[in-house]
């Protein structure tokens, strides 16, 4: 038995941790389990990567099967990390089309959560660039799924949180790039309305995201810095600049759990004030940034989840449909700023249509908040959930640890179809996670 938790360190659950070394051993693990789930690099925040009774570690499967330098098509095992993919193929002129805020996620995890990046509004999610998936199902079969073969299972697997089976391998299309640099433009917005308008105006930019000062109140509510970005061409680099900057290991690692009082309304306020002012000073012109700080700002600090102390933290990420989003987001931000203890880094961005049956994205705005786990936090986020449900929005499963069944069911209308597909692949319920148990597995006597 091992005590396993997600990146948010809440909840921590005792399950068997299995480390199979071959695909056959993965099959044996599934055959023997009474409720198991595959786990990649453990970057899901909540309970998505924790099995009901067994958790199957997949990071040992990290081989690249084949790569075509003419097309950028790569076949690889599911445990390869995006960081590894970037380090290996970046210098050869290819990057993943979609990356989330950390590069330390596995390919299998990125597919299972259909992760989105700063380009979702125009280029879609990770799953859009997956050509096919090798899946080991609950019945013990190994099947290849794609838009042509088993298309329904394919679309249920993208964003399916690993619940259609264990993802063993996948074929991805990579993006041809000339450099590992992004031409970034920063815009400062004085309030939420301006921030949303700036994101709308940035629709044609490949990458766009807003950082929100969630402590600001009143007329400053929602004041933001908006970051737009484009891949830099080789001709844009000055002489002597390395075309592919190297991704460094975190320069600073948080060595211990910080006392929970480190983050309080004063320190967060001071940090946010400084961050906003420094960003606002850079606003206007454009400059080149390496892909690493651009895409993965928090990867610069190792084990940053420890900043929140031993009790862990909750990440809350919702998406609100376009219509009426301004009022709902304003209401949420107002409650958060009045509470005052939240969000080291609050992020707002636009999403487009999701590709998978259970993919999180829908056209609208997504807001990501962090809260340290404290006594009163659960009631507070429940309150936010009610606003999200009323607005027709939903929560991101890769970050969820506590939403209610009702919130979940209201947000994911394709659930019934997903359950049917799962039942056909896994009639005896071998593949189950703490997340599925919490949100939608049939309650067994």
């Amino acid at each position, binding site marked *: 038995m091992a005590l396993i938790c997600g990146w948010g360190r809440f909840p921590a659950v005792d399950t068997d941790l299995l*480390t199979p070394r071959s695909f056959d051993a993965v099959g044996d693990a599934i055959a023997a389990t009474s409720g198991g789930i595959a786990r990649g690099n453990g970057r899901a925040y909540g309970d998505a990567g924790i099995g009901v009774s067994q958790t199957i570690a997949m990071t040992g499967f990290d081989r690249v099967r*084949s*790569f075509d330098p003419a097309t950028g098509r790569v076949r690889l095992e599911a445990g390869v990390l995006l960081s590894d993919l970037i380090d290996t193929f970046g210098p050869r002129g290819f990057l993943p089309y979609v990356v989330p805020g950390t590069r330390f996620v596995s390919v299998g995890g990125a597919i299972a959560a259909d992760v989105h990046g700063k380009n979702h509004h125009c280029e879609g999610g990770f799953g859009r660039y997956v050509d096919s998936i090798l899946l080991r199902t609950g019945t013990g079969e190994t099947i290849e799924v794609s838009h042509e073969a088993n298309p329904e299972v394919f679309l249920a697997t993208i964003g399916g949180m690993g619940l259609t089976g264990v993802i063993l391998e996948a074929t991805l299309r990579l993006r041809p790039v000339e450099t590992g640099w992004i031409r970034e433009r920063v815009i400062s917005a004085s309030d939420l309305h301006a921030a949303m308008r700036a994101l709308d105006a940035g629709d044609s930019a490949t990458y766009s995201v807003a950082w929100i000062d969630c402590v600001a109140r009143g007329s400053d509510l929602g004041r933001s810095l908006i970051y737009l970005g484009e891949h830099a061409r080789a001709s844009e680099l000055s002489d002597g600049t390395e075309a592919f900057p190297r991704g460094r290991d975190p320069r600073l690692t948080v060595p211990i759990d910080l006392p929970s009082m480190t983050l309080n309304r004063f320190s967060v306020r001071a940090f946010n004030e400084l961050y906003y002012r420094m960003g606002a000073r850079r606003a206007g012109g454009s400059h080149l940034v390496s892909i690493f700080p651009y895409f993965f700002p928090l990867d610069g600090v190792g084990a940053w989840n420890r900043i929140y102390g031993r009790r862990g933290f909750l990440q809350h990420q919702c998406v609100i449909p376009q219509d009426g989003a301004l009022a709902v987001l304003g209401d949420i931000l107002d409650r958060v700023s009045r509470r005052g203890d939240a969000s080291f880094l609050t992020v707002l961005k636009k999403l487009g249509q999701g590709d998978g049956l259970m993919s999180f994205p829908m056209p609208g705005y997504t807001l990501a908040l962090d809260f340290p786990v404290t006594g009163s936090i659960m009631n507070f986020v429940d309150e936010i959930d009610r606003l999200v449900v009323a607005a027709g929005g939903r929560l991101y499963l890769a970050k969820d640890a506590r939403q209610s069944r009702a919130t979940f069911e209201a947000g994911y209308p394709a659930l019934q179809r997903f359950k049917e597909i799962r039942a056909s692949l896994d009639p005896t319920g071998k593949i189950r996670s703490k997340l599925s148990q919490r949100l939608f597995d049939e309650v067994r006597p």
Partner: protein
Amino acid sequence: MNSRKIVLVLGGSSDIGRATARSFAKAGWDVQLAGREAVALEPDAADLHARYDINASTHRFDVLDTASFVDFVAGLPALPDVVVSIVGLLGSQQTAERELEHAATIMRSNYEGPALILGLFAEKFLARGSGSIVGVSSVAGDRGRASNYVYGSAKAGFSAFLSGLRARTSRGGVHVVTVKPGFVRTRMTEGMKLIGPLTVEAPVVGDAIFGAVERRTDVVYVSGKWRLVMLIIKALPEAVFKKLKF
């Protein structure tokens, strides 16, 4: 013909073996992977080729089958520039205390086999006048402990062999590296209680091995902390040491 340098990795299917092969391949070296089951190495050879566009071949090698060593070396498509032995067997100390055969297998896997095969390559490299030999030994060889002295003594023998070989070959242009990884999170140590700050991941060992070859380092403690730890452990008087539960 290509002019890329070649590294031979003995024990190529182990976690450290795979990581070492990647560290060399990343720098543009061709790789020969050797292990008990050559077929099982093919996905790793394909991985190296796909990632780094280098040539990778697979070869059957059994460290206990010393009679096959001469043919193994002769059968390689090319004499490598560097040979790395990662072969080893932790085994079970408790079983080894009761079963001679298990104890002998641990001794032969960690000392006899690796020493003989590297000795063979040393002759070839001396004849050519160049080459590097890397032996992965262990901090466990620095002092015999109650909990794993069968393994530790074999590693001690291997370390002594490497140090003597180094002294002999250094004048002939052949460099010998002794690597002492300490705790590494691998299949071998799965389920063991490892001390976090003293534990490294396999790729760190691979990069350390590549760096030691490039810089011609003699003895490498992969995590510098181990050098200090072992300095203290080696300095303890025997009368104290034997009373420690350790």
